[in-house]
């Protein structure tokens, strides 16, 4: 007789699953719950911080001119904002009677122009003292991240750069700029350029480049119109000397009949 082959099941072997104990499950649930609770808490913290930032930015600038410190703090405080938060800031500043752009001490046009402002200007322009401020604010707004601050990966959001006019100058560069001699300009003025071209300032037309070759322009005579105005034989149907074609044909017919009679 053939030797006995051990019977092997063709069904899938069941893996001995390690059943989690009650305590294990509880611990995992607790960890998950804590994780989510911490996420929500972080979100609330950042929202509260943004509100605090809005409150701080409401009072800027303290003087008539924004100081470099204030400009720097504006750029840093606004870092966590979403574009909608900046809109909220503009709204709040308007209620306080200040221009929507944080570094501007003037009052918005909704106050300076009065009740008529809303139909003289677009609704967004009313919140600022001038179009320049509106543009500067837009410059900042476009840099803000659409993703809320609590979902941002660290390092993705670039630091906010202010508009060139408001960029805080460090004391060193400000000093260097003030020491710069007045006569040294970046662009030469008209006088220098004229000298370079060899024109004398006392010349006949000093600002224009002179050439000694004279080129005759080709003259064009006005084209003669076919029908002269007030021609002696113009009929009563002519409009400013022009005879409409249909009218001409009719006239000819009329003339024929006239001739017959």
């Amino acid at each position, binding site marked *: 007789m053939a030797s006995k082959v051990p019977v092997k099941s063709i069904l899938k072997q069941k893996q001995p699953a390690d059943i989690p104990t009650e305590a294990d499950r509880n611990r995992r649930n607790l960890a998950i719950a804590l994780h989510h609770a911490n996420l929500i808490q972080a979100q609330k913290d950042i*929202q*509260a911080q943004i*509100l605090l930032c*809005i*409150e701080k930015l*409401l009072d800027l600038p303290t003087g008539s001119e924004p100081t470099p410190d204030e400009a720097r703090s504006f750029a840093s405080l606004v870092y966590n904002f979403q574009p909608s*938060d900046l809109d*909220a*800031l503009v*709204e*709040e500043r*308007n*209620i*306080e009677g200040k221009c929507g752009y944080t570094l501007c001490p003037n009052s918005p046009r909704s106050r300076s122009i009065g009740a008529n402002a809303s139909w003289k200007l677009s609704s967004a322009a009313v919140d600022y003292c001038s179009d320049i401020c509106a543009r500067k604010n837009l410059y900042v707004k476009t840099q803000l991240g659409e993703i809320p601050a609590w979902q941002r990966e660290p390092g993705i959001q670039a630091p906010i750069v202010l508009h060139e006019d408001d960029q805080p100058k460090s004391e060193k560069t400000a000093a260097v700029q003030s020491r710069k001699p007045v006569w040294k300009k970046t662009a030469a003025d008209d006088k220098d350029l004229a000298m370079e071209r060899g024109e004398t300032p006392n010349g006949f037309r000093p600002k224009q480049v002179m050439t000694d070759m004279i080129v005759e322009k080709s003259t064009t005579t006005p084209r003669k119109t076919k029908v002269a105005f007030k021609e002696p034989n113009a009929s009563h149907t002519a409009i400013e000397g022009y005879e409409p074609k249909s009218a001409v044909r009719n006239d000819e017919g009329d003339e024929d009949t006239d001739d017959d009679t």
Partner: protein
Amino acid sequence: MSDENSRELSRLWRIFRTTKQMCADRGYELTEDECHISLDQFRAEYADSSGAPQRHKMTFTARPTTEMQKKYTPLARPGQPTPEPQIGTVHVEFNGDPNLGVKGLKQFAQLLSEKNYYTGIFVTQSAPTSSALKIIPSLLPTVMEIFREEDLLVNISKHELVPKHTLLSAEDKKRLLERYRLKETQLPRIRVDDPMAKYLGLRRGQVVKIIRKSETAGRYASYRWAI
């Protein structure tokens, strides 16, 4: 101009009356006369010489009745044998500013904390800005409630289609859950921003009993858990 004043006055009279009735319904100490003030009386007390209403004069405070204090007392716990009632004096202010921002609400919040009021009710003519509303959760445990004037023109609790809502005390809530062998999560719910929930000043976790008319049963009570 005087016509406009009188219209504004009667509008504010209705708002004032509803606010008082709301506070009385919540359980604050207010007399029946105060809650049903007549227009003439209102004009005599709160209007200036030109007949225009003065909102700053309408400010009032009210203390909770003992019943209300009992209702708001949480259950005794092993650590706290005699818990404090979670309710106190209410301060109601009326604001007529055309724009209400963070600063306006902060001022009111500061007043609440200075005078140590438990609840503040701010009735505003215009809608506060969205960032101003975000202040409210930061003030806890002081409760600040904001109502628009137009929402208080009519007392909604007196409308025919609005059933009677009553707040259950912590003890009543416990008894209810034991009676029906429920967990509170198994109750039907009501949002805290529901108009009637706002009217009663419900807080998260409280239970209201709602008694409706029923054709078959005469009266029908249901319970809702505020979330």
